[in-house]
């Protein structure tokens, strides 16, 4: 046994030491991360550990192994909720990645700087609203009775709010709300990322005969790949936790939207209607696993965590 231990240990140090850049550390650095670390432990790590504890026990505190996971997975609302969220995520992530990057590229290269700043500000404004307020805005937008776009809704065949809220339309509605509130902020971030690309690179591309599309596709987008991965990870994590939008729509539609449309709502029902906090924790662990897998794939594919050595 000892041979294993001694031979593994040096291997680890070999990987760790020479490749990484040496950095100067000091108290200031520790001080800066201290605040975040305290909050992370209190509101991130501790609740996660507690959720694992709950998910592996029952309400009498007995160890249940994987039984809680099996129990919630067999719930008739589990699969529909995860299918709903999967459909929503696919639509939302595709829309987010394609549109924010496209808009950022256009704003960066094809529009006068002054005008571009105005557009970036306008796109960002809805994001400044709290989630609840933005849902309320959309409740009005989507009700043919009061919507400023009621003509459009009627033309699309929606004569009542109830018709708009048909089960098949819900993922689209949530994508609309999420895009409207969330995409503006990411457009600003992507614009900033594009600004980081040295002008010489773009100039060289132009000299070599690359047009705007070619430049965007072959130079700009590959160079902001990490940012796109970063955005996707955060948007995925936020998207799996969809709660406020369906919950408010459920109330506003007088119950026409299922109270367990998203997994997070199902967890909420488990905890606060059944009083089954253990089952709720098991659902949240499922969501955590989903988020970690997605993040893991994206991080390993995009070199997000490799540190560039400065020349």
């Amino acid at each position, binding site marked *: 046994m000892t041979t294993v231990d001694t031979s593994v240990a040096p291997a680890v140090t070999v990987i760790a030491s020479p490749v990484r850049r040496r950095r100067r550390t000091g108290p200031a650095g520790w001080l800066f991360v201290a605040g975040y670390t305290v909050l992370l432990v209190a509101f991130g790590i501790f609740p996660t550990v507690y959720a694992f504890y709950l998910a592996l026990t029952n309400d009498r505190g007995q160890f249940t192994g994987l039984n809680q996971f099996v129990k919630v997975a067999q719930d008739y609302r589990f699969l529909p909720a995860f299918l709903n969220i999967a459909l929503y995520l696919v639509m939302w992530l595709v829309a987010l990645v394609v549109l924010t990057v496209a808009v950022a590229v256009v704003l960066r290269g094809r529009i006068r700087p002054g005008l571009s700043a105005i557009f970036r500000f306008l796109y960002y404004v809805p994001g400044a609203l709290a989630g609840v307020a933005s849902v309320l805005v959309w409740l009005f937008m989507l*009700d043919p009775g*009061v919507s400023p776009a009621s003509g459009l809704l009627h033309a699309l065949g929606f004569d009542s709010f*109830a018709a708009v809220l048909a089960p098949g339309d819900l993922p689209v509605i949530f994508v609309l709300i999420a895009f409207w509130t969330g995409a503006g902020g990411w457009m600003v971030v992507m614009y900033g990322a594009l600004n980081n690309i040295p002008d010489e690179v773009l100039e060289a591309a132009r000299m070599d005969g690359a047009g705007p599309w070619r430049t965007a596709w072959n130079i700009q987008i590959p160079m902001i790949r990490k940012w796109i991965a970063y955005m996707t990870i955060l948007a995925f994590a936020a998207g799996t936790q969809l709660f406020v939008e369906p919950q408010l729509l459920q109330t506003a539609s007088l119950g*026409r939207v299922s109270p367990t449309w998203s997994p997070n709502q199902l967890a909420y029902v488990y905890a*606060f209607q059944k009083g089954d906090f253990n089952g709720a924790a098991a659902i949240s662990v499922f969501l955590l696993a989903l988020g970690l897998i997605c993040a893991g794939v994206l991080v390993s594919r995009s070199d997000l965590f490799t540190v560039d050595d400065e020349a």
Partner: protein
Amino acid sequence: MSPRSMKSGARRRLTIAALSVTAVMLSACATAEQSTAPGGGGSPAAFEPAPQQDGSQITVWTDSTRLKSVQAYQAAHPEAKLNVVTYDGSADGSTYLQTKVQLFDRTGNGWPDVVFASTTDVTWASQPANPQAKAFAAPFDAGLVPQATLDGFAKGSLDPCKFNGHTYCLRNDIAQVVLWYNKKLMDEFGYQVPETWEQYEALGEKVAKEHPGYLIGSVGDTNSHESYFWSSQCPALSLVDARTLKSDLSDKNCTRMATLLDKLIAAKSLTTQGFFSQSFAKDNASKVLMANGPSWYGKYLFDGAFKVPAGQMAATGPLKWDGESTVATGNVGGGVWMVSSHTANLKTATDLVTWLTTSNENQAGAPTYPAYSAAAKAWLANPENKQYFATDVSDVLTKAADAVWTGWSNTRFSDATAWSNVVLPALTAGRTLTETLPQWQTAIIDEAKTVGYTIAGK
């Protein structure tokens, strides 16, 4: 040992470790089921009040409609210390109260002393949420209220309060279903007021032909099934015992109503838009000729929302089926008052609830039809509750109050959920009720199972 073999040895050990952890996780583990199932409490322990503190402040949670009554009690009893909080009152299937009580059970304090709630709330409040907790509601029959008072409530109106032989709530109001009609319009059109469902159906088809656009009802609200299917004595939710639920929507009492409604929906004299849905009042209020619905429709729907002028609306019914001698009707809501078993001032809490539900002083002017029979008489004697109507509605409401069908059980889950998110979207999408009945039944059964009911066969 070569590095490679060592590596594979380590991997093997890791695999074994992982497999054995999985094995432990899967076997010899306790059940994941909650410790309480409906009716699972066994013999209920005798009620043990919390330590009492005379004259201490009590917290009262009420909906905004009953706020005035609580304030009136405070005015009449200045010595009582009340902290009054307004909340949604558990209306429309809200689970706010249940959510909060679950949290208070976990933290061990914070419970309100007196709450206004829906009948659905009594099903969880009458049983402990977990082995450590105590049932939220205090049993009124455990010396809090004399039996004579409990006997004074309208027939069957305390049924939803009862669990294991104890009474955990006092019913504030009942919402017996009657047929509301606009007398002015009916006279204008020269129509007879229907007395049976068959006449109602025939009239609906006539209205569709002669006065298209006019409506004789709606099935689009979260509670329309209680107005129609409950009135039809459809066994959608019947508790065989505290743990066993039977739901049979293929029963002829259900299909006859579905067929009738489908015909009228197709004829367009019955709408699938809810009376309470956005913009209905604005666009269609003047087109409502009749509505089968609860006693509170008079004041809250026609007067409040539709702004129908006084002297036009009248009530009849409840409607019967041809060849049936018994009159049965539905019930749409009706709140209850509960006292917390954790309160330190049972005396004031009980006195408040008794005053609110049974005193003529409060109930004669109450917004909705009182469940306490003597108070209901006083309510009907109050001209303010009747002068809005074209005819005297007293007899119709009194008759309906005692005719509420008791086969529609008060379950641990709200009957509105399956109706609103399975049946209503299907109707909006243009499907018929008859073809949606099986789906509705599946939704009810699925929901019943998750709260721990066993499903009885036919």
